[in-house]
């Protein structure tokens, strides 16, 4: 593996090394610190990222170039996931170099794949509950970028973007940030609501699950809870729409709790879970 890491900084050997290392990345638990601490490897990976910027607009990213950069992103994801390198990765602000990818709108496969893999890096960061990560992300424009993907992405991209927003909301700092102004709350609320509408046409249980978790978490904030009494999509109270959750007790319980929190007790009871009262709202910081 050392030889492959060294090859990342040798122009002629780089492409093969990217492919081989991204394939085998999970069998080397120390790969992340090797990538970070060896000479020039992170610099070489960043070169891979910025080298495809010119193909973003007008959209001209080929499958080949997309593959190659996604292999580099997979290695960055490895660095983002590892407890010994995560902080260093944030300290160097490397996630910001992926934001231009999330800003693209082309629906072609190379672009979908690029966005999905980039979201995967951010997803790896939020997967561990770490306020440092949330603070970092909130200091950047990740929320509007996630909202954009949630509006326009493929089902899988939407799911990962919603997962990222969910993890930001689950942190108190993130919840307070999003509920700090009406504008922010309604920006998130409007996108969640339009996704629910979209699910009526194209159902996806896994996406619905994350949307419900986001709403439930928003309802922990007193002002957001008030607002949700008015703007929670009616579909979430429609037994036909939520019938797809019949085998998913956790999500059904989240939904019932959400409905209780915003005052729809009958519909909550109809979900057949054992929720009795609203969860106490969080004190605002």
């Amino acid at each position, binding site marked *: 593996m*050392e030889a492959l890491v060294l090859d990342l*900084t040798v122009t002629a050997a780089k492409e093969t090394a990217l*492919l081989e290392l*991204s*394939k085998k990345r*999970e069998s080397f638990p120390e790969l992340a*610190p*090797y990538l970070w*601490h*060896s*000479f*020039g490897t*992170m*610099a070489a990976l960043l*070169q891979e990222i*910025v*080298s495809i*910027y*010119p193909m973003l*607009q007008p959209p*001209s990213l*080929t*499958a*080949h*170039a997309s*593959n190659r*950069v*996604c*292999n580099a*992103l*997979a290695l960055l*994801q*490895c660095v983002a*996931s590892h407890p*010994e390198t995560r902080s260093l990765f944030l300290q*160097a*602000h490397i996630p910001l*170099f992926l934001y*231009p990818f999330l800003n693209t709108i082309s629906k072609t496969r190379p672009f*979908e794949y690029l966005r*999905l*893999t980039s979201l995967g890096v951010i*997803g*790896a960061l939020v*997967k561990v509950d770490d306020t440092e990560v949330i603070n970092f992300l909130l200091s*950047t*424009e990740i929320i*509007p970028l996630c*909202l954009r993907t949630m*509006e326009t992405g493929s089902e*899988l991209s939407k*799911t*990962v973007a919603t*997962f990222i927003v969910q993890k930001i909301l689950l942190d108190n700092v993130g919840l307070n940030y999003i509920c700090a102004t009406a*504008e922010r709350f309604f*920006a998130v609320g409007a*996108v969640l609501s339009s996704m629910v509408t979209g699910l009526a046409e194209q159902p996806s*249980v*896994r996406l619905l699950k994350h949307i419900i*978790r986001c709403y439930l978490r928003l309802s922990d904030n007193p002002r957001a809870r008030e607002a949700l009494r008015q703007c929670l999509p009616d579909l979430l109270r429609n037994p036909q729409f939520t019938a797809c959750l019949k085998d998913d007790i956790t999500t059904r319980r989240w939904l019932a709790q959400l409905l209780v929190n915003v005052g729809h007790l009958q519909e909550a009871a109809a979900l057949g879970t054992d929720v009795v009262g609203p969860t106490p709202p969080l004190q605002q910081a």
Partner: protein
Amino acid sequence: PSKSDAAAAAAAADGKPAPPAPGPMIDPNIIANLHNYITINPQLAIVGERLQLKRLVPMAVDRAIVEIISPVVDRSVTIACMTTQELVLKDHAMEPEGEALRKSAHLMVTGLAQSLALVTAKEPLRIAVANNLRALLTNQLDANMLEQVVAMLVADNLDLCCQVIEKAAGERAQREIDERLGGAYAARARAKAAGQQFVDGALMQGRFPGALPEALRPRPGQLTAQQQRVYEDFAHIPRTAAAAQQSAGQPRPPGSTGQPEGSEGGSIGPPGSRQQPGSGDAEQAAVAVAGGGGGLAPP
């Protein structure tokens, strides 16, 4: 405007703290001599005379650049400097020559700041140049003709605008990285004056880099030619799609790449992944995309 635009505006309004940096310093000669660099297609010669394009196009280009340059250069330079500072200090922890550190830092910060500035500014510039041209030329042409003339002028002059902004970003990034690394340059000079071997102790304290295998472990002393080349590559980052295509290399034969080109159901998976995210649980998909290794923490 879409909802995420509102969110973007909200984030921009109070999100990132603006760095306390001076405004972008553009080479005064480029802006002052814009008219020398402007391209006006010969097809427009006749109409161009009547419309005073030689006077109006530099005006539109100048206004567009002024509208766009400041936030783009600020943001690109700040990000490029933060990244460069962390990575060059790490890679040069045992490099005794301040000048070698400075050279690497300049190469990297310039490449990164220019790339970020270009990718951020290109579309806003295209729109701003077009809008300014329309504002200056409206009433002088019928709508259809106006759009044709504007499109032609934008296509011919967009790259000039981009170059101005890239140049400003690169120049300011170099000044700013020197400020940030002033202490690191001085520490190397002090060690040299005292006849000591320089090592950045703060970067050598953890388990790594000491725990790296021999082949990857940093060695005391100056960078090798191969190591210098990694940083020199920052001077050759492609800035056009064609150059980017070339730098990505030739496609390999089918089946040898990571992209699941022929995977069932057209689902998209992470590179090198054996397991495609299927119709299963959302968390599985997120985990698969987020790189596996442990489940999600229960909410």
